[in-house]
């Protein structure tokens, strides 16, 4: 569960792969982030609106609302216009890049993630 220390950065991860969610949660918690996780788009949207995380990582292949739709929706909400939203996907690089550009993502991270530098990459988006 996220701690209530509002001075630490916060991250919301939305992905239907529970092992991936747990992996990201562990990596980012160890780096001092408050981390929320959601296994589907609807829950993820609700958490995003309630918790207003500093950065979001969203799987493009969600089973209820697809990831691009969710990202496009969030990026049209004033609260998220300037927040980094990063797509996480196993799609081929070109497809991922096209979707990222089209839907206004701030970037993408390919799956499977590299545990060694995942936290650094998230931090880089946050400090842009």
């Amino acid at each position, binding site marked *: 569960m996220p701690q209530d220390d509002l001075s630490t950065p916060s991250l919301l991860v939305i992905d*239907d792969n529970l092992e991936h969610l747990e992996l990201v949660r562990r990596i980012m918690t160890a780096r001092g982030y408050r981390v929320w996780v959601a296994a*589907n788009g609807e829950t993820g949207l609700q958490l995003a609106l309630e918790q207003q995380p500093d950065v979001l990582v969203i799987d493009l*292949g*969600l*089973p*209820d*609302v*697809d990831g*691009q*739709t*969710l990202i*496009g*929706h969030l*990026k*049209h909400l004033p609260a998220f216009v300037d927040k980094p939203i990063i797509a996480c996907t196993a*799609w*081929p690089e070109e*497809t991922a890049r*096209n979707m990222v550009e*089209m*839907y*206004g993502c701030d970037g993408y991270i390919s799956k499977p993630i590299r545990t060694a530098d995942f936290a650094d990459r998230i931090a880089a988006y946050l400090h842009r």
Partner: protein
Amino acid sequence: MPIELPPTSTAKPRWQTSPLMTTEEIDSSLQIVPARSFSIDQLVAAYNQTRVDYLVPMPMNAARLAEYIHIYDVDLDYSQVAVDGDQILGLAMLGVRPGRIWITRLGVLPIKRRRGTGEALMRALLAAANQLRISYACLEVIKHNLPAHTLFLKLGFVETRELLILRRPPGPPVEIPSAEVGWLNHAEALALLDTRITPPAWTNETPSLAHLENLAGLSLSLPDGTAGWLVFERQKFILSHFIMQTSQGDAVALGQALLAHLYQRYPDLDTHAENIPVDDPHLAAFFGARFVESFRRIEMHRH
């Protein structure tokens, strides 16, 4: 991870008493079983696992699969699942409408491909069509899915046309042409579909659209007499099921005006426009309105 069937009891497996007795031994272990024998949760888990390595995986959850079954008249008594012991290897679904069937959601677990499972599923579906006394079958295959395309050709399917899957991210229109615009409710939109000229893909046939709760439409005429309409579905986050038709005049000008007025009203919604024929006369208007081709399907049929 394989999909496990529920624990079996000493009772006869349900599929052995199914009204469709198509269970057939492809080899010593593979069995083809009606999809009705499985829960929606089992079917959706199997479906998602068959697609994990697809270019466009399009995963579903149980609610979306149930909706898909309803909208497209998928009949689970005639849809089929391939099993080996307690493991689901693949599945294929059958839409049934008067005089025609539609084959959809065919997929085999990546590690179980190239062993005849897909062909066994296809042959079971075609046997079901025979049992229904329906000779016309149609399907769509993602372009460049060579193994599936080759299988369909082998089974006697021929290509009819290419279909585009288009997407447009949320955003307002750039320019809004002056026009007379009328917004249509479900019944009014549905009535317009009877005037269609181009035969639609199964997903856009009138019975599919009639099942959509939030079907709506927009009719429009321009000062030069160009006129036509757009029928669509509006969901919480997306617009979909686009059918556009020009009654008279310039198809591209009409399309531009229809899309501009649509996105003036719904600037925050994402759009999936599926199965638009490659020769649709409004395509330039779609691309001008920031639609992007996501991928293509090849429509095939067999008599």
